[in-house]
Each structure stands twice: as structure tokens, then as C-alpha cells.
């Protein structure tokens, strides 16, 4: 008992130290590193959102960048064309992301859940191509001149402002995800992931909960998109391609599916690794692909897994019994 409380206290101390270091970081860091870390926080938020779908509920979403794009374009269009204040665009972006999550998720999730993977992949392409073709979304050149936001009377302008904004948002998202994970809903998701039939037998409606997971992921992605739009002040369709979705997925898988500290670690890795190996830039996606395969073969539970085994070994009926369907 004392051992666990010691461990808990040590990890609390480490967390507090890390947060303090992150809050003081802008005092010592150059603008370049400030920018790198701001991106890392940003991927932390996206990865935490995707983790709800992939890690908690065990579904594969290959078009996560689409929701991120929906959020970014909603804010971009509303602020530049209709001059809506930034904060009012946030609920609109969340609502649109949720709505598209339902439209895409409902037909796919009613069937086998692996159809979701390909439907989301297709959806990601639809969104990108649509953004490229419509004049409303600025065609291939995208939307630029998105005004800097004013949040509670404070205008966000400098790199430091955005560093703190994203740091705080990442912490808030993390805490929200931790609450969600241990809630009734979070437990239901994990139950479905581990054994859908057993969960259904216990009165959990797999379809409703899977759809909820998908929509929660979509909303987080949409919200991240709104912040992306005002941070970058310019957005273009090519920021929201398939590779963006793969990158976020890799962050979730690298650290440890479903495990929040692992997901944060994964997000930092995918931002910091390319910085560390700039000279191999063209090898990046090749190595990412090889990494995905190797992870699935040797460490499907991620680099920083939870204490108990997470990946079910019994979910398939291919060769180990069942009637194969």
C-alpha cells in the first residue's frame, strides 16, 4: 500500500515538475522551439481526440483530418467572409463536426466496424477534394487573412500567446479525456472494444456507443481545427490530406493505444522525430509505414502501455474457431 502511494506521489511530482517546466519554457526557448512545441501540443489534442475512437472504442478512423478540416474551414469562412467573432465560430465548428460524424459514422457503424476505416478514408478525400473545388473554400489556394482572435478581451498575437493557449487547451483536453475514460461511457467503450458480444449481452448498445465515440472524436478534431485556423491565419486543402490522418494515427499507436500518457508521448514523438532527422526527410513516410508494421508485430500495446494487456487476442475468428464470418 505504501509502495503504491509512493509511486502515485512520485508520478504526481513528476507531472507537476513537467508542467512547471512547460509553463516556464517560453522564458528560455527560441521562437523556433516555441513553434515546435506549440505544434506538439496541437498534435496532443488531435491524438487525444482520435484516441477516443481508436484507443477507447477500438475503431479505425483513417480520415480524422477531415474533421480537423471542417473545424478549420468553418472558422476560416465565418471570420473572413461573415466577420463573425472567433469565439462564436467555435460552437458552429463543433456542431458541424458532430453532424458530419453522425452522417459518416451511422451508416458505417451499423455494419461491420472495419467498414468505418474505408468510409472515413473516402470521407477524408471527399472533404479535401471539395475544399479544393469550391470557391467558398478558396479552391486550391485556400483561405488566408483569418483574423487573430480576441479571447476574453485579450488579443492573441504573439507566438507566446499561442504557446500558452495550446498548452492550456492540451491540458484541459487531457483532463477531460481522463474523466471520460473512467466514466460510465468510457468503461462501456472499453468493454465493447474487448468483447462486443459480451458488452451487448450486458445491455450496452454497441452501435450507440461506437457512434458516440466517433462523434466525440470528430468534435475534438473540429475544435482543434478552429484553433489551427487562427494560429496559422491561412489554411489550404493540402494540410488536411490522408498523410495528416496517418500522422495523427501514428501518434496514437506509437505511445500506446488507449493510454493517455502514451498518446501524449506519441504526439511529441511524431513532432520531434522529424526535427531530429531532417536529413532523412524523404524517408519519413517509409519509416512511418515500417514503424506501424513493426509496432503491430512486436509491440501492439505501444511504447508506454498500461499495466494490463490491452489488445484483445480473441477478436478474430479467422483461424481460431468460430464460423469465420
Amino acid at each position, binding site marked *: 500500500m505504501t509502495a503504491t502511494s509512493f509511486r502515485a506521489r512520485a508520478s504526481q511530482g513528476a507531472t507537476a515538475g513537467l508542467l512547471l517546466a512547460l509553463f516556464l519554457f517560453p522564458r528560455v526557448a527560441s521562437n523556433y522551439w516555441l513553434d515546435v512545441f506549440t505544434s506538439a501540443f496541437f498534435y496532443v489534442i488531435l491524438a487525444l481526440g482520435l484516441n477516443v475512437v481508436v484507443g477507447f472504442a477500438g475503431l479505425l478512423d483513417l480520415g480524422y483530418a477531415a474533421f480537423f478540416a471542417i473545424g478549420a474551414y468553418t472558422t476560416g469562412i465565418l471570420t473572413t467572409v461573415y466577420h463573425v467573432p472567433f469565439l462564436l465560430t467555435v460552437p458552429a465548428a463543433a456542431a458541424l463536426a458532430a453532424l458530419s460524424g453522425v452522417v459518416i459514422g451511422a451508416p458505417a457503424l451499423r455494419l461491420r466496424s472495419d467498414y468505418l476505416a474505408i468510409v472515413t478514408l473516402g470521407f477524408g478525400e471527399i472533404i479535401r477534394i471539395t475544399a479544393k473545388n469550391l470557391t467558398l473554400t478558396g479552391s486550391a489556394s485556400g483561405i488566408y487573412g483569418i483574423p487573430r482572435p480576441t479571447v476574453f478581451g485579450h488579443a492573441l498575437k504573439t507566438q507566446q500567446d499561442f504557446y500558452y493557449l495550446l498548452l492550456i487547451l492540451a491540458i484541459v483536453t487531457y483532463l477531460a479525456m481522463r474523466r471520460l475514460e473512467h466514466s460510465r461511457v468510457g468503461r462501456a467503450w472499453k468493454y465493447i472494444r474487448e468483447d462486443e458480444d459480451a458488452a451487448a449481452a450486458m445491455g450496452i448498445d454497441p452501435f450507440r456507443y461506437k457512434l458516440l465515440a466517433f462523434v466525440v472524436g470528430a468534435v475534438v478534431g473540429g475544435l482543434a481545427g478552429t484553433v489551427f485556423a487562427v494560429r496559422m491565419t491561412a489554411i489550404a486543402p493540402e494540410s488536411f490530406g490522408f498523410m495528416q490522418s496517418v500522422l495523427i494515427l501514428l501518434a496514437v499507436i506509437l505511445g500506446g493505444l488507449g493510454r493517455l500518457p502514451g498518446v501524449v508521448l506519441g504526439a511529441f514523438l511524431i513532432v520531434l522525430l522529424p526535427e531530429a532527422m531532417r536529413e532523412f526527410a524523404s524517408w519519413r513516410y517509409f519509416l512511418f509505414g515500417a514503424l506501424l508494421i513493426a509496432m503491430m508485430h512486436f509491440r501492439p500495446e505501444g511504447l508506454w502501455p498500461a499495466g494490463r494487456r490491452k489488445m484483445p487476442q480473441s477478436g*478474430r475468428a479467422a483461424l481460431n474457431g468460430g464460423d469465420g464470418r
Partner: protein
Amino acid sequence: MNVWGEQLMNALVIGSFYSLIALGYSMVYGIIQLLNFAHGDVYMVGAFVGYGVLSAMSGAPLFVGLGAAFLFASLATGLLGLGVERIAYRPLLQSSRLVMLITAIGVSLVLENGVMLALGPSFRVMPVELPRSGLSLFGADVTYAQLAIIATSVGLMLLLDAFVRRTLYGKAMRAIAVNPTATALMGIPVHRVIALTFFIGSFLAGSAGVLAGVYYGKINFMMGFIVGLKAFTASVLGGIGSLPGAMLGGYLLGFLETFGAAALGGEWKDVFAFVILILILTLKPTGLLGRTGTERV
């Protein structure tokens, strides 16, 4: 000039490519329930092997070169399929679906970027040009090349159909699709049959890759990405797991896309297929020729 007739020929050609690729998706899915995301990239590799053979044989007569490229590329991609199955998928057959799907994404990235690293990201122009001669059918100009592509594709499909229906290996494939455990208990080498399925599926995708590469004249390491997605749509449209369904779905998608693009504008061509995919999943998820009843998870 008969514009509609020419569009019809375009639809048949593009439908042939979709059908050939969709067959591989459907076969692999039918036998091990894996959405093999890397399948579109096998098509791309086929085009590149064909390019290599044609470049090496640039002095040879056109038909000799084309024949050699076709055979060599199909066999090479068939072997590539075998290798991918052996290295990436077989050790994971007992793992969860998510693990398999993520592995397939990894294989796709490795194939695309492996070709990109080896040969560069720019488009390559095929070193042959198909003869433009042809004939007039009901006022539509049809080239012999188009007819040859359609005939080759249909021929391959008929061969596959005969193989699956008539041979012992075909029967073993159908048996595994129904119940792998019972099949293994009957003494059938399940892994060998799965490997054969990958070989045949990849062979067909590779042959589609050469044909498409020669037909369009330009190839690129990402050419399999969208085509693979569309071929998947085709196999869902026809009913995944059903081989006649995959063929039908491929041609149907070819028609819908060609005439849809003609009506709405070419820039929406790629969106069209995905809208069909989402609609079919909503309205008739078993596809046109698929088994009825919802599938058990």
C-alpha cells in the same frame, strides 16, 4: 461522332481496371476478412514493373514488349503479394482486426514510399505508345487498344471464375471462406491456400496496373491510392466476398463515374465514387450480389 458511345468505351476500360483490382479485395476479404489497404499499391507496383520491362526491351517489337511486360509484371506483383502475406499478415492472423488493419496501412505506406525513394516522386512516361488505329462502332470511334484491354480483362476474369469453381484449390478457397477451422481439420493446408489467394489477387491487380499504365501513358507512386479506394468501393457495391459481384461492381462504378463526371464536371469524379460507397453502405450494405442478412462480428 458518337460522344456517348465513346464515353461507354471509356467506362468499359476503366471498369475493367476497377474489376480486376476489386477481385483481389474481395478474395482476400472473403478468405481472411482483411481490408487489404495495400492492394491499390500492388496495382501501382505492377505499372512500375511493366515500365521497367518496357524500358529494357525498347528495341523489341511492340507486341512482344507489351506481352513480356504484362506477364512479368503480373508474376512479379503476384510474388509481391505472397511476400507481403508471409511477412506482414500471416504472423498476425490470430490478432485483432484493428492490428491487421493498421498493419495494412503500414504496408501501403512502405510500398508507396519505397517506390518513391527508389524511383523518385515525379511522373514517369511509359516508353511505348499504343497505336491509335481502331474502328467505328455505331458511329463511336473505338481503338483496338481499348478492345484489347477489355478482352484481356474479361479473359482473366473468366479464367479466375473457372479456377475458383472447377479446381480443387478453388474449392479449398471457398471452404476457408465458409469455415477456416473446419477446413483445417479436413487436412487442407489453410496457409498455403491463403497465400495462393494473395498471389492471384495481386497478380490481377498487377496486370491491371500494366494495362492502365500503358493505356494512360503516365505512372506515379501514388497512382494506386485513389484507384485502390475506388476498387474497394466497387467490391462493396457488388457485395464484398462475391467474385461476380466484384466484376459487376467494377464495371458499374466505371459507368457511374464516367457518366457522372460527364454530367457534373471532371473535378468531381473522385468524390462521386465515395458518395456511392456511403450510399450503398446506408441503403444496401450487402451489395448487389452479396449474401443477404447482416454479418456477425
